């Protein structure tokens, strides 16, 4: 089969690889009908995530048709149309039973490696480095899905691939970020980063009762999409974000702030070069520019929710602000399985049509070009959906 593989920094290639096989009893094999490129994969593409190996198959947002099931798969059958959650979760351990699926204790065969990096191991993730298990991803014609009963949601009505595909990651990720903000009626919520996760965070914040959402980015098409979703916008290249937020909130600050940017943040001025230099010299692995701004802007006693991906160590973390102003920080890889049913219901009853975020449609064999386009954010690129053949 064809698969999009990582070969190094900004080096993706679609190559022929063997078809996947069932390896564990609860595995299923899925024939992929749609897959997407996730913003978090750009961190792999740009070489910021350690323990990638040449030839690793990319992709953790995908859906398709079940074509093979292992002997212990109980609730999925051949021919089922399913969306797959990006974390791999056993459904049996302490964390899975608490619906903290991305913290599954049993799905990461490289737990020892993750323990060394993070102190404790987290769940396996498709195509997301060997720290998260080194599982082959879904930017391929076929993919193996471990714990298929837990990790898939069946799509039985006539919704299109593009309407349900993002249940795999970005829709629940934006939704969980908003949910973590514990939004109260009348709240103002600020969102750093208007990429796909930011877009879903904005819409989810409104769904959860936010009075006002303020979206921060620098790309006009992303700010426009945020505005279409009902947000007020700040272009951080035109105005000082902190000053603008204080003006818009009467000096109090947003009730909650979301960092949907993560470790490759940008900002005009010298601070960007400070962090970029430290990153280049391995003095920090992540650039927490958006996180610092979110912490400084958030109102006293408010919540900073972090769906943006961080991989290692950051510098100049304003912990004094967090402590003295009683801020709450909530974060985590998304427990995607937890949101399968409630968010599928929201799509079915018309609360939201997630396909709004798609700007580019390509064939699987164009994936490397897609990564390049998405990375440079050219041609108004916000979300790319790939279809095999």
């Amino acid at each position, binding site marked *: 089969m064809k698969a999009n593989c990582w070969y190094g920094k900004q080096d993706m290639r679609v190559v022929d690889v063997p078809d996947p096989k069932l390896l564990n009893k609860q595995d299923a094999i899925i024939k992929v009908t749609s897959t997407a490129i996730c913003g978090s994969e750009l961190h792999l593409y740009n070489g910021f995530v350690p323990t990638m190996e040449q*030839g690793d198959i990319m992709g953790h947002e995908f859906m398709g048709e079940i074509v093979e099931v292992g002997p212990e798969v109980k609730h999925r059958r051949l021919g089922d149309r399913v969306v797959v959650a990006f974390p791999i979760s056993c459904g049996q351990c*302490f964390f899975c039973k608490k619906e903290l699926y991305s913290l599954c204790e049993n799905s990461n065969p490289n737990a020892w490696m993750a323990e060394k990096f993070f102190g404790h191991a987290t769940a396996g993730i498709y195509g997301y480095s060997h720290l998260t298990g080194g599982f082959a991803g879904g930017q391929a014609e076929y993919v193996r899905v471990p714990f298929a009963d837990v990790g898939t949601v069946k799509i039985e009505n006539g919704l299109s691939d593009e309407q349900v595909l993002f249940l795999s990651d970005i829709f629940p990720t934006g939704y969980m970020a908003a949910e973590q903000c514990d939004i109260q009626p009348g709240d103002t919520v600020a969102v750093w980063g208007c990429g796909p996760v930011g877009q879903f965070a904005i819409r989810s914040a409104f769904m959860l009762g936010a009075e006002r959402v303020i979206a921060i980015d620098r790309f006009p098409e992303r700010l426009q999409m945020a505005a279409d979703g009902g947000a007020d916008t700040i272009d951080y290249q035109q105005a000082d974000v902190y000053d603008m937020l204080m003006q818009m909130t009467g000096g109090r600050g947003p009730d909650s702030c979301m960092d949907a940017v993560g470790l490759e943040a940008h900002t005009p001025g010298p601070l960007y070069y400070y962090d970029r230099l430290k990153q280049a010299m391995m003095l920090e692995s992540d650039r927490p520019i958006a996180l610092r701004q979110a912490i400084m802007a958030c109102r006293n006693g408010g919540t900073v929710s972090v769906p943006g991906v961080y991989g290692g160590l950051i510098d100049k973390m304003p912990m004094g602000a967090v402590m003295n102003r009683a801020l709450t920080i909530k974060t985590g890889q998304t427990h995607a399985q937890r949101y399968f049913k409630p968010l599928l219901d929201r799509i079915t009853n018309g609360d939201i049509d997630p396909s709004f975020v798609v700007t580019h449609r390509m064939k699987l064999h164009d994936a490397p070009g897609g990564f390049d386009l998405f990375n440079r954010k050219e041609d108004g690129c916000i979300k790319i959906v790939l279809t095999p053949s």
Partner: protein
Amino acid sequence: MKTDQVIHPHPVKSKPHDEQLTVVEHESKAVQSVQRYLRRTDLSGNGTLTQEERLAYGLGWLGIGLGLMELLVPQRMAKIIGAPQGHEGLIRVMGLREIASSVGILGERKPASAMWSRVAGDALDLALLGAAFASSRSNRNRLAASIVSVFGATMMDIMVAQQLSRGIETRNGTIPVTAALIIDRPPDELYRHWRTLGNLPQFMKHVEQIEVKDDRRSHWVAQGPAGSTVEWDAEITDDRPNEYISWQSVESATVEHAGSVRFEPAAGGRGTLVTVTLRYRPLLGTVGAAIGSWFAEDPTQTVKMDLRRFKQVMETGDVITTVGQPAGRAQSMSRKYDNAVRR
């Protein structure tokens, strides 16, 4: 006794070894002979010092001698090392420092930090000797010899300090490692699976096969060097249903191996706390080397991952793997991750 086991990271060491071995209810002759053998070979590791500890104490006594000489006869010391005259005060101070760090080493059970302070002192000595080089009154030949020998001592100190702080105890060649994990299943279920020794190779990376001979004796086959296998007979030495199992290789075995597993209800009714302690005594020769290499990098790692795999089996019914999945590379290139700790 249970709490005693949980609190100490090395339960085997923390209690008199007779207790560990004699709680057997139906002590067979063979078991007794195993116990005698263990006491003789000190597999239980009580009382004696590790190689690193012995080396550290030797270095400590050496330091006291050197320090006393610096303190009492600084002029003669200056002459020996080739330093210029007129710095007796400084040499006395360095002597005091030497004695202080040596006392620190001798006064500790595991003198890792004291060894590191000795390394810092070595660096100071080297710096002063280097500075003395600039003085025209120095005997530079002697000084050079001094620098070389202090440098050698520094290297040795660093080595010992590293070994001590790594915390890997090669107690007379025995490598004891302990790991603990909570498994979300009741103790009796876990005990039953483990007590069926034939199940162990399913999650123990290096063990290929265990043949159960009778209620207590079993035959173990494990990975040896270059694709070969090593084999030994083992015997269950303690067996308390739903609580504890311990086993030892028998006297005639070529590999000395001992292990125990404890099952106790975890706090708050959250499953079972499983604590595994394994000890292998690598013998001389290739067999010993192969077993030593299992533990070459981080001995607790293998046991931890074995225990994780046990958890996977008990909670999900399977050991999760990625071996055999597709990738855009030659199969041999998946080496380090696929081979490191996985089956």
